[in-house]
Structure formats: C-alpha cells, structure tokens
C-alpha cells in the first residue's frame, strides 16, 4: 500500500529563473544550474583594472580559445559549492581513517629505511608541484570566463592545496612530526638535479599568461604524467617491495584524479569540438607542454621505482587521454 502524504500545493508563478528558462525552457532547474549559469557579470563594467588596463574586469580575451558560450563548459560532476564540499568531505573521511590507521598501527616503523628514503626523495617533493597546481588552477578561476569553468577551477585549486597538505602529512609521519623530512625534501626540490627540471617546469607554468594554456599544461599534461609515474607505477613498485601500506596514504590522490580528470576531459572535449581553431590551439599547447614535461620528468622516471618506471607508458596514457578528448 502506498500512502500519499497530503501537502497543500500552490500554483507557482514560474518554475525557474528567466535566464534558465531562456536556456533550457520553462521547467524546474537543478541546483547546479541555478548556482552556475550566467552568474558572472557580462557587461557594463565601470572601470578598467589598474593592474591590466587593456582588459575589462571579466574579459573573454584572456585566452586565445574562443567559445560562443563559455557556459558550454559544464561540469559532468555538477559541482556547485555544496555538492563539491560534500563529495570531498566523504573522500577526506576515508583518508582520515587511512591516516589514523596507519599512525595507530605505526606502520611507518615497518617500512625499510630505503623505502623511507625513497619516499622523501621521490614523493614528498611533489608537495611543491601540488602548490604550483594550486596557483595554476586559481589563476584560471580568477581570469577565466563564465562560472561553469571558473568555479570548477577553484575547486581543483583547493583540492591541490589539500593534496599538498596530505603529502606534507606523509612527511610528518615518516619523521615523527619533526618536519625534518619536509626540510630534506625541500632541499632536494631546490638543489638536487633530480628535481631541477621539474622545478623549472613549475616556474615556467606560473608565468604563462593565457589561462587556458595554463589549464592544458597543468591539468592535462603535468597531472597525467605525475599520476601515471607516481601514483600508478611507483605505487605498484612500492607494493612489490612490501610497502603496499603507503597506498593507504595516497589513495586520496588516485580518487581525486579519477574524479577531476572526468571534468577536465569534458572541458577539453567541448573546447576542441567548438572550432578547428580551438582544436589546433589546444593541440599546439599539448604538444609544447608534453615535450617540456617529458624532459622535466625524465630524471625522476629514470630513478623512480629503481629504474623500472616508464616515462613512455606515462606519455602513452597522456596521448590516450588527449585522443579521447578529441585533441
């Protein structure tokens, strides 16, 4: 038997906001749609930025990519703020359980010294790469166009700060909260030949002006290669060395990548499909940054997993991802 709860229904005057009615017809809108479409100011800006007088405050020309409607770049995950934080809260709860278990059972004690040294040398310096990713995504959020893409870039930017903090916590677990491992990893980041190519690459992405190029360099090229080399191949090697417990501490990064690449791929696909000019542009950027990143990561790939890591496999994963997005 179904019971129908009686509520008094009043006839609404309209089902949604007028901008959503223009876009999708007169029907109830989702919370994602209400929170996203046309929220950013479009016209009648009062003053030019003192810091960039050749542009309007919100200006499509901060990238060479051209879109008739930037709201085409919708997020398949439908993240607005509330949906985003609730999804990440679930992920962090899982991560917190993992970290708590790792620390409670003192699993770091079971790691051979060589593995600990490898984590400090090969994994912990990535916190600086994540910090760069934070800045690069916030860059797109600040100078990009249309709430659909700019909010997703901010979510990604904050994710990367979170990942940098998780990586730092791994360091603190290894050094018993002294911070010595973080200092050592920073020294490697600053001085060791292993990391100089990567550091130069990070610095290079931070001076790129076109925000969509930054997005391609960071969220497509660098992220795919780092994910494949470190969180897939290195992870596998650690497991083979009996250090599979470390995977508990990096599970967040793999879950995050599965979630975020789904969004980034959808964005790239729509941009490339918009016009031949966009496709060419994005391909050129992909090509340029693929070359730089392969060179920058070569020393790490050579050393990672005792030389068993394969940069070629990582590059193949990148090419596959790009091809799927139509680039």
């Amino acid at each position, binding site marked *: 038997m179904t019971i129908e709860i009686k509520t008094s229904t*009043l006839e609404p*005057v309209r*089902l949604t*906001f*007028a*901008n959503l009615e223009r876009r999708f017809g007169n029907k109830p809108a989702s*919370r994602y749609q*209400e*929170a996203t479409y*046309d929220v*950013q*100011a*479009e*016209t*009648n800006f*009062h*003053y*030019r*930025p*003192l810091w960039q007088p050749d542009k309007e*405050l919100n200006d499509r020309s901060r990238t060479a990519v051209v879109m008739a409607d930037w709201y085409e770049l919708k997020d398949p995950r439908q993240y*607005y*703020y*509330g949906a985003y*934080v*609730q999804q*990440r*809260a679930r*992920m*962090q*709860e899982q*991560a*917190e359980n993992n970290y708590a278990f790792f*620390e409670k059972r003192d699993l770091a004690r079971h790691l051979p010294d060589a593995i600990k040294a490898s984590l400090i040398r090969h994994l912990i310096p990535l916190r*600086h790469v*994540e910090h760069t990713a934070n800045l690069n995504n*916030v*860059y797109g*959020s600040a100078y990009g166009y249309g709430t659909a893409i*700019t909010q997703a870039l*901010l979510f990604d930017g*904050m*994710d990367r*700060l*979170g990942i940098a*903090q998780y990586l*730092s916590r791994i360091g*603190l*677990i290894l050094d*018993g*909260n002294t*911070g010595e491992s*973080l200092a050592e990893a*920073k020294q490697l*980041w*600053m001085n060791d030949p292993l990391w100089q190519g990567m*550091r*130069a690459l990070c610095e*290079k992405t931070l*001076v790129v002006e076109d925000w969509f190029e930054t997005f391609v360099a960071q969220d497509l090229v660098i992220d795919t290669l780092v994910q494949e080399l470190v969180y897939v191949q290195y992870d596998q090697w650690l497991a083979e060395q009996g250090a599979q417990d470390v995977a508990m501490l990096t599970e967040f990064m793999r879950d995050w990548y599965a979630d975020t690449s789904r969004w980034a791929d959808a964005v790239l696909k729509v941009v490339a499909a918009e016009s031949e000019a966009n496709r060419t542009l994005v391909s050129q950027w992909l090509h340029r940054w693929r070359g730089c990143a392969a060179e920058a990561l070569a020393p790490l790939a050579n050393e990672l997993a005792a030389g068993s890591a394969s940069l070629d496999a990582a590059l193949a994963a990148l090419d596959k991802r790009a091809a799927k997005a139509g680039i």
Partner: protein
Amino acid sequence: MAAKKLNLKDKYKLLTRDLDWEFSYEDRKKAFPYEDFEGIKINDWSKWEDPFRLTMDAYWKYQAEKEKKLYAIFDASSQHNGHLNVSDPRYINAIKLFLTGISPLEYQAYQGFAHVGRQFGGVGARVACQMQSIDELRHVQTQVHAMSQYNKYFDGFHDWTHMHDRVWYLSVPKSFFDDARTSGPFEFLVAISFSFEYVLTNLVFVPFMSGAAHNGDMATVTFGFSAQSDEARHMTLGLEVIKFLLEQDEGNVAIVQKWIDKWFWRGCRLLSIVGMMMDYMLPNKVMSWKEAWEVYFEEAGGALFKDLARYGIRMPQYADIVEKEKEHVSHQAWWTFYTYGHAAGFHTWIPTDAELDWLSEKYPDTFDKYYRPRWELAKKLESEGKRIYNNALPQLCNTCQIPMLFTEMSEPGQIAYRVSEYKGDKYHFCSDGCQHIFEEEPEKYVQSWLPAHQIYMGNCGGPDVPDILRDYYHFNLGADNLDMKGSPDEQRWNEWKKQG
C-alpha cells in the same frame, strides 16, 4: 619512537607555509606581477600571521556539515510553502533587493579573492584569500538557492544577474565592487577585507539576517546563521591585513589611511540602501538605521580606531558627516525609490500610520520636521488617485552613482551638489566625500558607466522609459514595479491566505 605532538600553529606552518620557494629559472616578478605598483612595501611575507589555521581536510568536513543542514532547511521550506510564513508580503521586497543588489557582490568577492589569492607573493596570505574566495562562492550560491523558492511565487527575482548588470540603482553596488576589483591587490584587501568586512559588515549582515528572522523568512535566516562562521574568518583576515600592512613599513601608513578614508565613504554610501531597508521595508522592525549605526559603527568602530591609533591610523575622513547623516539617509533614499517606484524592480509603498509613528519615535529630531510631512502629502495624493511618480531621469553622482538625493547636513532641506571639472568636462557629486574620491583618481572615475547618461546616449534601447524598463532591464511591467498596493504579489498573497 613516539611521534612528537604538534600544536596547531606549528602543524599548519609545516603543512602549508613552506610550500613556496625562491625561483631560480623564471623571474618571480613575472609570476606575481602586481605587488609593487601601489607603492605598498612588503619587506617580509613570512611575518604574516595566519588569521585562521584551517587545513583543507578540516575545511571540507566542517563546510559539508554546514551545507547539509542548510539544504535540509531549504528543502523543508519549499515542501511546506515556507514563503507563506513571512510576516507580510511587503517583506519580500527586501530580499528582492538582496538578490539583485548584494548576491552578485558575493560573486565579485569570489572573483576578487581568487585574483589576490593568486597574486600575493606570500603563501600564508594567498591561502587565506583563496579560502575566502571559495567561501564567497558559497555565499552567492546558497543565496540563489534560498531565493529560488521565492522566485517561484513572487515577482522581481526572475532575472537577477541580467538586472545587476543594467538597472540604474544596481549600478551603485556594482560600481562599488568593480572599483575594488579594479584596484591594486592591497587596496582590494583594505577595501573589502578591512573597510567592508571588518568595519562595516555587521551593518549589512545583521540587518538583513535579523530582518529575515523578525519577518518569518526561514530560508534566509538559516543561510545567515550558516554563513556566520565564514564571516568570522573573513573578519579576522581583515584585521590581519591591516596590521600586517602597517607593521611592514612605515611608508604604508599614509597609503592605507587614504584607502580607509575612501572605502569608508564608499561603504557608507552603499549602506544607504540597507538603512532604507531597515527603516521602511521590514514590516517587523529590528532596530532603526540610526541605532544600528550607533551600535555597530560608533561603538564598535570607535574602539577599533582607538586601537589602530598606535600605528598612526585615525578615524576615517568624513565620519563626522556620516554621524549626522544617520538621521536622514534612510528617509531620503526611500522617498526617492517611492517617487521612482515605476522604475524600480521591487514594490514601494507609503508607510502605515503605525510605521510613521515608529519613525517619529526613532528619529525625534528629524522625522516629524523634515520627512513626515512628505508622507502625509503622499497619502493625501494617493487617496485622491494621484500617486506620485517622478518621470524625469535623475542626475547621478559620478562616484557613488546614487541619484542626487542627499542634502546638506547644515541645511537638511537643501540637496547637496558638488561639481568638478576635469579635462574640460564637468562631473557632478552628491557630497564632499564623493568629490574627493573623484579628484584623487579622476582617470578612473571618468569611466563610470552612469545608467542615466547611458540612457540619454541611447545605449539602453528605448526610446521611452517603459521600453528601456521592459526590453533592456527585463522588468515585467505592471508586475515587478509600481506600488505594492494592487500588485500581483499582493493579490496572490491575499488569495493564498484565503485558501489557508
């Protein structure tokens, strides 16, 4: 080996503060190019004290809990026709003004903090700004979701972002935030984090949210409570910004003082719509604008500026004028909207007799003398079927963009006019404060997109005012505008109440 315990400060420092590095391969100035042009000197970013030490995992967790509770209330409100619980349908007009005037500023705050959250050279300051950025995105989105229910049953909410970009009185809040975002990064922080969030925010937030509480608007008041802990973080950022800038270099003091003066005045002009909302638009009153000003600025702000005196910072310029204006601005603003009620996207009305008495009681020195006679006249005319509508386009102040409606404080019957000449053109202002701001940066303010000018230049369609209101502003004429009396909002409300 037992791991040593870390206190929150050290842990946050290790997790966050050491992520950045000195560049070797690129010019760091190219990565952070906007730090120098305002003349502010930062000698050592590491002296930045993190105003709140929230790591991302904790942020996700706390904020998700808050969002879950908030949306449960929104859902309940829409299931139970929560819009029927407001005190009086006139109240709804206050939140129309909020959605079209204030929520888009939350969005601009998100954008502005993303900009400075990318640009500052110090990682501590950047991360604090990024967190405020994402909070501000939260605020605009939760506000839209709270108002979504009202949009379904009342007029005037339906095209809020379109209106914000175009409607004459909405250029007041829009130009305020455009001004802040187009400024350099340090001025932005002094403008928004300090002058607005820290000094004046209680005068926006408390009136609107208490107004919602006193008038049965569950969705808005729940949003307000939920945002309070975010606002508390934003205020601590505002204070840290000011202390940091003042402690970094003595040369910063004069620059910061100039910005405080400017943004205090700009903020006060913006707040005149809040004053009007409190005194005239809330059927159940919270307190008068004058009382709010005394509690939240004169007492709280007075103590703050006493504290800042040790850095060489004094009370904002023109604070003495604002103290006099608290007796007048709300009355002058609502009268203007009442007489331009055909061109407003919300309803206006004559206060009830009981409300007129309340105003007389709250403003014993000014209301009966200057303002009550106007309303008595308006009542008489309305009863004769001659409701006042002023059809001339108002002249706007070139800085704050409010119509010339404010009077001389020495002579409250006399409209204040100021004129400056710049490169052969004349520019008009409502006050010494606005004129002074223009004269400090004329190149900026000659760019103002003044709605009345734009209409005259034919940039807003037309030719007649109703065409502009309908086609350019997207007003539903006869529904969104005009008097509350006889409006579709009022008719529907009466129908619902009959059914209930």
